[in-house]
């Protein structure tokens, strides 16, 4: 019996989405690399340079010279990079000629993630076995405290990059739980090398703060300068040691320059925080901005100046209190079609 299989025109059309994201074959990438090398030599020739010693920086400079672009986004401008940087790294074919897959967990679907879990669990069992042996021999269990504050686990995106396959939120949290469990055991020092693969150093913020050394006056009095800004105000402050707490702004006494109490409190805050109210003198110059902005600028400048008088721990306290951070808030621009930065025009129903 004949079987008539009628397909509609819709079914005959290629389903573009069904094949998944674009897969780059090895031959394609090889061709791209050849084309790139050829293009590099052409470019060197055009620029009059030696094709053999033409580096990536030279390429970038040449492209920026030949194709000037005023686009804001750097990644939207024309660029010529090596194909391995342009095309994302993809997994090659997972099975050999006879059809047998290479990895023993291939049929799970997420082979790299599950093999990672398998290895980590094996390390956990090793540690437990070692612990049992130590207890059997009555040896003390080592407990060197791992520095928990200075390191963090890999993020989900970093793990995805490491494994070259998608990791879901649940899987990621399970993996982190397993790592935490491994680290919590007393004899985890054995697998320290393995754990370090998944932990990253968190650079202590304080190292970025530069502390100026103290300078000495002609009379032998120690002083230090600091600069600060807030909105459009710019201020420089010079803080002298062995003082009485006198503050001068632009040659005028602080009581006359800042009649409002709030501004004077802002000036005093760094000193009050460190408990050095009556011990320092201050001379500052400030320009731009309004009354509150100038007060904030002087506060930042004086905090920076004071950081040279004070120990590193207290500088860290100041940083955590927010005395050393520049306030990034500026006036937001007005947008067309609106009355102000956020306010819209009055809506009339008819």
């Amino acid at each position: 019996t004949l079987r008539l299989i009628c397909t509609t025109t819709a079914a005959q059309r290629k389903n573009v989405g069904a094949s998944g994201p674009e897969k780059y074959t090895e031959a394609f990438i090889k061709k791209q690399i050849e084309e790139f090398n050829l293009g590099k030599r052409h470019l060197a020739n055009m620029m009059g340079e030696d094709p053999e010693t033409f580096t990536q920086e030279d390429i970038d400079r040449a492209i920026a010279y030949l194709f000037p672009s005023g686009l804001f986004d750097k990644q939207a401008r024309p660029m010529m990079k090596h194909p391995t940087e342009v095309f994302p790294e993809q997994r090659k074919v997972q099975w050999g000629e006879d059809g047998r897959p290479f990895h023993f967990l291939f049929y799970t679907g997420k082979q790299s993630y599950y093999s990672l879990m398998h290895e980590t669990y094996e390390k956990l069992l090793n540690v437990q076995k070692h612990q049992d042996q130590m207890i059997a021999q009555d040896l003390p269990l080592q407990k060197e405290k791992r520095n928990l504050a200075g390191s963090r686990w890999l993020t989900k995106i970093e793990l995805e990059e490491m494994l070259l396959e998608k990791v879901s939120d649940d899987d990621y949290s399970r993996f982190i739980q397993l790592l935490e469990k491994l680290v919590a055991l007393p004899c985890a020092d054995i697998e320290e090398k393995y754990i370090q693969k998944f932990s990253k150093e968190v650079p202590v913020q304080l190292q970025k703060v530069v502390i100026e050394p103290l300078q000495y006056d002609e009379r032998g009095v120690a002083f230090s300068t600091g600069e600060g800004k807030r909105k459009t105000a710019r201020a420089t402050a010079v803080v002298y040691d062995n003082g009485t707490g006198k503050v001068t702004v632009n040659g005028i006494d602080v009581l006359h320059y800042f009649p409002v109490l709030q501004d004077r409190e802002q000036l005093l805050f760094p000193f009050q925080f460190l408990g050095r109210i009556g011990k320092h003198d201050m001379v500052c110059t400030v320009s731009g901005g309004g009354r509150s902005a100038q007060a904030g600028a002087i506060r930042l400048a004086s905090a920076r100046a004071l950081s040279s008088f004070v120990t590193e721990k207290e500088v860290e306290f100041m940083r955590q209190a927010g005395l050393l951070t520049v306030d990034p808030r500026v006036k937001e621009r007005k947008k067309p079609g609106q009355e102000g930065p956020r306010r819209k025009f009055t809506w009339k129903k008819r």
Partner: protein
Amino acid sequence: DDKLLTEPLSHPDFFSVKELFTLKDLFDARVHLGHKKGCRHRFMEPYIFGCRLDQDIIDLDQTMQHLQLALNFTAHVAYRGGIILFVSRKRQFCHLVESTARACGEYAHTRYWQGGLLTNANVQFGPGVRLPDLLIFLSTLNNVFEPHVAIRDAAKMNIPTVGVVDTNCNPCLITYPIPGNDDSPAAVEFYCKLFRMTIIRAKDKRRQSEAIEELR
């Protein structure tokens, strides 16, 4: 090449699988222990020897026969270079099963089973995947005490299955059921050891036969 494939089929026990285990080994590994009477599955009644203090005892003579058939079959599949997939959803033995599979050079799946793995393999993995030629279940139930989806999928895709069925499991769709305990660590380690020995033995015999053929 033809002779290599047809020669093992003429012998009833080409790989001498019967020597790998005795009834005493099965008893020592606590394979005969089943679940309580209330958990008993109706289709497991022919395999049960009796019931003591509400706990079912599996008939080890029948287990011996089934185990021989199953091991013989796995040996033949491994001899012909087939892909063997170990499946188990027991969290206790997940690591053990994966290590056994890796030691044999075969494959394992002891994690969450995604729906279209066997039936929709071309879309999930890529065109031209080779599906497993044998599925070995160290435990036929999944974490919710229901029959594993892979049994039904293997039956749909015409893939033969070997499975250890406990007293609360359904032995219907499995081609070579092995009535026995799937919960004790001793029993599962015993099964893993048996499967590993058969597969390695079959692969070694294959390599020897190929070497002999090449010498001729």
